[in-house]
Each structure stands twice: as C-alpha cells, then as structure tokens.
C-alpha cells in the first residue's frame, strides 16, 4: 500500500514526510522527521508527554493522525529556544530543578508556554489546572509550578 505524502510546517519550516495512515503525528515527528524531543508516555492522551501545538492549539500528538497534519502549523519543543538562547520557561525549569528524568519536560514546557501566551499572570491554581494533563512521576509538581510562576513573573518584566 502506498504511503501518504504530507506537507506541513514544523517550527516555521516547511517540511514533507511520508507516513502510513495508521501513524500518529507523534510517530511521524519522532520516526520520520527525527524530532525526538516530543516524548511518548502513555500513547492514550493521559500523560501529556507528547504535547505539541497544532495551529495554535495545545494537543496530544499521540491522539492525532500524521495525515491530519497536512497544511497545518506544528510547534514542538525543538522550536522553543531561539538558537542558543533558552526560552524563559526553559531557564526557570533548570534554575528551580523542575525536572528529574526529563521525559515529561518537553510536553510540560509546551503546555506551560501555551498557558502563558493566553494568560501572562496565572494564579498557582490556574497553573495546576492547566497542567493537569501533564503527568510527572518524579518531581511532585511543586518545583514545576514554581518554575512556571517564576517564568511568568520574569516575562511580565517584574
């Protein structure tokens, strides 16, 4: 059976790949485009490790077919830093030691950026609610929430 040809935009770059119809966007990102920053945790939309942005919307890339990406704009963790300059969220995660094994981190960073783009001054409760779909089995979440709030503060210029 012939593979599907998909032309899409990833982190601002026009890319093309071939995929099986059954393949998820997560599999295409990792296996076809070799963008392995996006992680697979559960594969069923429960853990958020595979979070990416699709046309400005936060989604689980494990719950989307790769063929659905045709003509869309995808943003992954690989596009978060600007060259060598880390995004404030990335710096604050390091400062606060908001990660241990790191598998959940790319998804949490993408989700946290989506929150701060909509709401530059979230409360702690709003951060916890927004990140409810991102599971971390190492940190206990406190440092993650502290890092997001601190990054928000810095990004507001305060």
């Amino acid at each position, binding site marked *: 059976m012939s593979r*599907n040809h998909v032309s899409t935009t990833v982190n601002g770059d026009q890319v093309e790949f071939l995929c099986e*119809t*059954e393949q*998820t966007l997560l599999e295409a990102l990792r296996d076809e485009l070799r963008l392995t920053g996006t992680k697979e945790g559960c*594969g*069923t*939309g*429960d853990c*958020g490790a595979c*979070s990416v942005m*699709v046309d400005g*919307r*936060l*989604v*689980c890339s*494990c*719950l*989307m*077919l790769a*063929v*659905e990406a*045709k003509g869309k704009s995808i943003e992954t963790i690989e596009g978060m830093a600007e060259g060598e300059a880390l995004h404030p969220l990335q710096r604050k995660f390091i400062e606060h030691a908001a990660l241990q094994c790191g598998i959940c981190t790319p998804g949490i960073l993408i*989700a946290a950026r*989506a929150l701060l783009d909509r709401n530059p001054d979230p409360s702690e409760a709003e951060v916890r*609610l*927004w990140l*409810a*779909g*991102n599971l971390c089995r190492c940190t206990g979440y406190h440092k993650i929430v502290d890092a997001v709030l601190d990054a928000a503060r810095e990004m507001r210029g305060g």
Partner: protein
Amino acid sequence: MRYEAPKTLEQALALLAGANGKARVLAGGTDLLIQMRSGRADPELVVDIKAIAEMRSIAVDAGSYRVGAALSCMELIENDAFASTWPGIVDGAKYIGSIQVKGRATLGGNLCNASPAADGVPALIAAGALACIAGPQGRREVPVEEFVTGPGKTLLAPGELVVSLLLPRRAPHSGDAYLRFTPRTEMDIAVVGAAVNLTLDDRGICSHARVSLGAVAARALLVPEAAAALIGTKVDAAVLARLSAAASAACRPIDDKRGTKEFRIKVAGVMAERSGKIALERAGRYD
C-alpha cells in the same frame, strides 16, 4: 487503512456509504485513536469531518445555537456568547479530559462514543438538545436522550453521522449547570453526573425545567420526575430536597470500582440539588 478528509457533507456520506460499514468517522480522535491502538477498532477507511465547514462551526439563528459535531471543546468553551447562554453545557465540556484532549475532543464525539459516564451528555439532555443526523436516507433530528441506546451503542444507522447539535431558543431568566462527583478534581471519569436546566417567569416561579443524570444507568437519563418537582415552585430549600429525592429514585446504577450502587444513588441526589442551586443562581442573572 485509507484516510479521507472530504470538504462537504455529501462527499462524507458518499464515502461512508461506499465503505460497507468498515469506515469510522474521525472528529477529535480522542476516543477513536485509542480504540485503534488497542485493536478495538480496525477501520478500513477513516473519514475526517473537520474539513466540512458546517460541522466545524458554531452558529446562532434566531437565538437557537447549532454546534457543529466537529467543533472542539476548547473552541466551544472559548465562545463567550455560547458560554453565557448555556453555561451548564460548558461545565460539561470543561470536564472532558485535559486542555490537550479538549483541544481536539468534540461534544459530538462525546455523544457518539456513548459512554454512560460521558460528561458532555447530561447537560445537552437537560438543555433539550437535538442531535442532527445525516445519512443515506436524508436528515433527521433526534432528542439527545434517545440517541444513546446503551454503553457504546447509538441509534445511528450504517452510513449515518451526527452533523450538529441543535439547542432550543433560550428564554429570559434561564440557567443550567452540570456537576459531577469524582475522587480527583481533574482527569477523571464521573462516578455520578447531574445537570439541571430551568427557566423562571417574571414572578420567579419555575416555568420550565429539565434534569438529567449521568453514570447512574446504562445511558444518561432524562428525569422528568425531578423536573416536575421544580416546575410551578420558587425553587426553595424544600423543593430542592424533593428534586434530590426524585433524582436518587431515578438511578439504576451498577457497582464498580468507581462507586457502589448505594453511593451513586445518594450522591446523584446531592449533585442534582447542587446543580439546581447553581442553575437557579444563573437564571437570576440571565436576561
């Protein structure tokens, strides 16, 4: 497996008709992709309905909302005009998974997945929503409470799909609410859900009400006895107690790991009463 993303409803129906029941409709995919991964679904054709404008949009015509079956929950939640008109439906949409899942999941899909515990369904039933269906025999409209026939089962015939959900025109002084009981605050499945929708007249007397319960039977229930307790009253504490008792009496739950029968029956009354209070408060504000 083949993937098609038709741009019109007619093309989608033709694709479904040509697939001899081996096709599945793809809206948000948050249930379908999990079923495909586990092997429970193995379609030969997936028909993505998100390129069909009618199914992707939300429209209001003479005060009556039509919610496209492929509109994501986040798009619905972010529609301020809809959320102020039908806050109870938005309560339900907000409970459907994480932000990520709601970025894709749809109310139409939540209905078609036909889980007895679906968070999106009780408030639609309480609202008096119709499921607008299209298929080889044309179009038909079915009350949402009749759409699900059992766990995982709907009355969709082969080749049919849900195009949109149609809500009735909203009268002044109306309010609705949906609450659920879960051990966790997020990312959980309802042990019990309750939706109340009511309208008050100029004297503050309830002139219209509908009550629906989720996760207490094989499908979400419309509970006319609970609504009857509200109609013609000022919805005071004694009336809310009767609402609660009627809701508990309507439950036909199972025991499972999420809750016992006895617990569900008790909590259904509590959730209905609390939803009633919120709906009443919202009705006071809605003009």
